[in-house]
């Protein structure tokens, strides 16, 4: 007879935001102290199922459609209405907080666990951590140690059901077997249901009480015999049903275009377009620089005409020269400088984060292995896109700053003609005649040098070896500080040359 406190999942239906139905009306059970393996081909929905059990599905995309009922003890959760908080998840890749030590990873979980955990017996957890010093950094731990810390952290959080997503991924056979026996021990000692989603089940199978297969053809969860041959037969059946489709399908035609060898020149354009969008044309970037220009235009006029001992004179008899001075300084010095600071700061962060992540996830090594000149594509694209971005965004900032300056001026002098503002605001530039091109040239020099120096700093910092997310974060901060400092120096250098006459 089934225990009243067993985990029962019934009517589980999951549809992805793209409209793919993963499982439909699926059901399964897991008893106390039972170790359940959840297997299935790649893309069959194993991770989505455990995310649904742990209340993590649809966190970032509300377009997921989930239905079903979870029953555990006297608790019943309707997944269509409520997110489940029954299961503690050990994430694939561990998801350890690498800015904290091993001990702190557990302490932070303990400090945020339920009050009912006061009488909790830590012995099973301690057995997981026997060879790890609490002060050891996460980066210094081996793969097996990280996995055990992650399991211990989840146990400390004291959920009634333990779920593990690919716990043996990346572990050697010895570590994998040791981990499996530890999980089984926890499962038995704590008498809790444990569900493991896994691809490689050889080491886990001997300890499993039940094996559940996600059938991607019927979109159901079926129970299979915990026997390697039976499992392999089922997986082969599913593989034939999905991956083994005839190559004449439309999808195969699509893939052929990707596999055929073509010109490699387009990849620079591909990366350039990607970076140009992120560094220049994305709405946040445009709004950010536009807003910067608007604020600068407002501030220069508002404080230029106010808060001065001769404020009244500036607004009346000294108006023309005051406005001409503000206009000249704003268009030739202030806007290019502020635009450079804003763009270089933001883009240095983006570049260093992007390259840092590529470095951390070994993308450059992969590119090297595939004979892709990754550094060339990326570095050239970044420098070109960033420089073009800064030039275009400075023009955009000039437009919004001047517009805002006029609006502020018009607030002060509502009965004066627009052309009068225009005549004085741009007077110094118009009067400069052909030397206007020289002024534009100076501004361009400042912008280009700022961009090149800022990009170079961010690239160098981003490409340095990364050991963790924390090292990427530090690189971002470093790139912002150095990039902005470079931009300031570039502007100061050319401003001195510009006005050295």
């Amino acid at each position, binding site marked *: 007879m089934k225990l009243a406190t067993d985990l029962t999942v019934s009517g589980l239906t999951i*549809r*992805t*935001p*793209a*409209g*793919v*139905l993963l499982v439909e009306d699926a059901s399964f059970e897991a008893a106390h102290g039972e170790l359940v393996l959840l297997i299935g081909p790649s893309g069959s929905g194993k991770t989505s199922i455990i995310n649904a059990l742990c209340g993590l599905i649809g966190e970032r*995309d*509300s*377009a997921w459609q989930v239905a079903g009922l979870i029953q555990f003890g006297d608790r019943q959760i309707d997944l269509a209405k409520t997110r489940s908080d029954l299961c503690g998840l050990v994430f694939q890749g561990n998801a350890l907080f690498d800015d904290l030590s091993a001990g702190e990873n557990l302490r932070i979980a303990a400090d945020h666990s339920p009050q009912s955990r006061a009488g909790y017996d830590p012995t099973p957890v301690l057995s997981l951590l026997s060879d790890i010093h609490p002060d050891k950094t996460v980066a210094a731990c081996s793969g097996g140690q990280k996995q055990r810390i992650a399991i211990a952290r989840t146990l400390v959080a004291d959920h009634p059901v333990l779920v593990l997503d690919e716990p043996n991924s990346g572990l050697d056979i010895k570590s994998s077997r040791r981990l499996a026996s530890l999980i089984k021990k926890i499962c038995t000692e704590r008498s809790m249901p444990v569900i493991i989603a896994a691809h490689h089940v050889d080491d886990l199978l001997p300890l499993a009480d039940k094996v559940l297969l996600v059938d991607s053809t019927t979109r159901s969860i079926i129970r299979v015999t915990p026997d390697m041959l039976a499992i392999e037969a089922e997986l082969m059946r599913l593989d034939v049903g999905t991956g083994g489709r005839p190559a004449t399908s439309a999808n195969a035609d699509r893939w052929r275009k990707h596999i055929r060898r073509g010109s490699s020149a387009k990849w620079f354009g591909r990366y350039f377009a990607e970076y140009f969008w992120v560094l220049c*044309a*994305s*709405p946040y970037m*445009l*709004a950010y620089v*536009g807003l910067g220009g608007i604020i600068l235009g407002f501030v220069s006029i508002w404080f230029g005409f106010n808060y001065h001992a001769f*404020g*009244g*004179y500036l*607004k*009346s*008899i*000294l*108006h*023309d*020269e005051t406005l001409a001075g503000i206009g000249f300084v704003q268009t030739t010095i202030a806007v290019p400088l502020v635009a450079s600071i804003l763009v270089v700061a933001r883009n240095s962060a983006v570049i260093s984060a992007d390259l840092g992540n590529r470095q951390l996830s070994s993308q450059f090594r992969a590119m090297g292995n595939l004979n892709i000149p990754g550094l060339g594509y990326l570095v050239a694209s970044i420098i070109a896109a960033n420089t073009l971005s800064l030039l275009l965004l400075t*023009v*955009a900032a*000039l*437009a*919004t700053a*001047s*517009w805002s300056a*006029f609006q502020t001026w018009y607030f*002060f*002098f509502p*009965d*004066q*003609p*627009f*052309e*009068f503002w*225009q*005549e004085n605001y*741009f007077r110094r530039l*118009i009067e400069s005649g052909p030397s206007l091109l020289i002024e534009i040239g100076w501004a361009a020099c400042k912008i280009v040098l700022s961009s090149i120096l800022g990009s170079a700093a961010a690239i160098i910092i981003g490409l340095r070896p990364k050991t963790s997310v924390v090292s990427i974060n530090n690189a971002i901060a470093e790139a912002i500080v150095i990039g902005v400092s470079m931009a300031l120096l570039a502007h100061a250098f050319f401003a001195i040359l510009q006005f050295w006459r």
Partner: protein
Amino acid sequence: MQVRWISESELLARATSGLISGILILGFAVAGWSIVPHAAATDYSRIYQDELPGLVALPDEVPVFVMRRDRSVIRHGSATSAPGDRLRVDIFRSVADEAPDATEALLFQPTLEVLWLVANEESQAELRRLLGALQEEGAGAIEAVIMSDIFNHTYRPMLRSLLSDAVSRAWEDEQTQDAFADLLRTSDTAMRQVLRGEIEAILTSRVKEALWATVQANWTNVIGVPFGYELDYAPVVSAVTAVLQDPLVHQKFVTFGRERLTTDEARRLAERLAIGLIDSLLRETRLPKVASEIMWDPRLRNILHPFSESAMNLVSALPRNLGGLGKDSSLNPLAAHIFKALVLGRHTPLVMFVTPQDRTRMEQLSPDAMRFLISGDGAKTT
């Protein structure tokens, strides 16, 4: 349900991002286009010419103003020289319909007198009152300063240097030279050479000597010139006449004819020289510095105290009444232009459109302050 390779939300996010970026870029373009100067709109241009032949030579561009019913003045456009001694006035599009009854175009030199003509009756009355007080209360004090040893030892040499320069400029002034040319026109070629050479040198040198008397006679009225006060040119006229009586000059004029020194041309030359001298002093940028030193000289403080107070009252009233300054400071573009011209020593004239009634009023106040422009083709050009 149809399976999509990109989720609906992802597609929506991309489309939204693209749309927002497009809107922002369009916004930047519109903002930039709306504020960047474009070529002047020709449908708002008019052609004018001087009522009298020979339009004053204009710099590249002169400002055009319009005076509204309440006598406030705003910028109305810009003017440039056009072929055939004519003037092309480009009206600002945004204020083309401002003050439609201001049909009279007047050309002014950038002097305080223009602000005086534009000022309302209350402002003019206040300035007249303060000028009267200045003359009354300060006369004794100034007299005492001028007679003091401190002034004669310290400041008189400095002022003499300024005056010498002012005389040179007055002599080189176009109108003085015109008067001199009129005088020469009646003489023969040999005499012209004498007059242009030696007589000019003697005249310049001797007039400088006589200038101090001129300043002493005029010091109070100088400040009031822009507000309708007349200068007493008699000392300079007398000085120039005395120069002409000089034995050296006499000798040179033997063949010229003494009677010519008492002609209208000679008298006009003397007057122009005097007027040019005063104008030159008004534009002398070093003069305020010397005046400031005198005013703040602790040795002269007691003597100058009554004058200082009156002068300060006047100085503080000038910007308020003529420059639009005061509790609610507002932009007076006309005052701004004139102030800049005075400070920078520029002579950029200005064009102002006024109503026929205002033109009559200004003519009565100062008939010589303006030149009248008439429509060159009688209609707007297109």
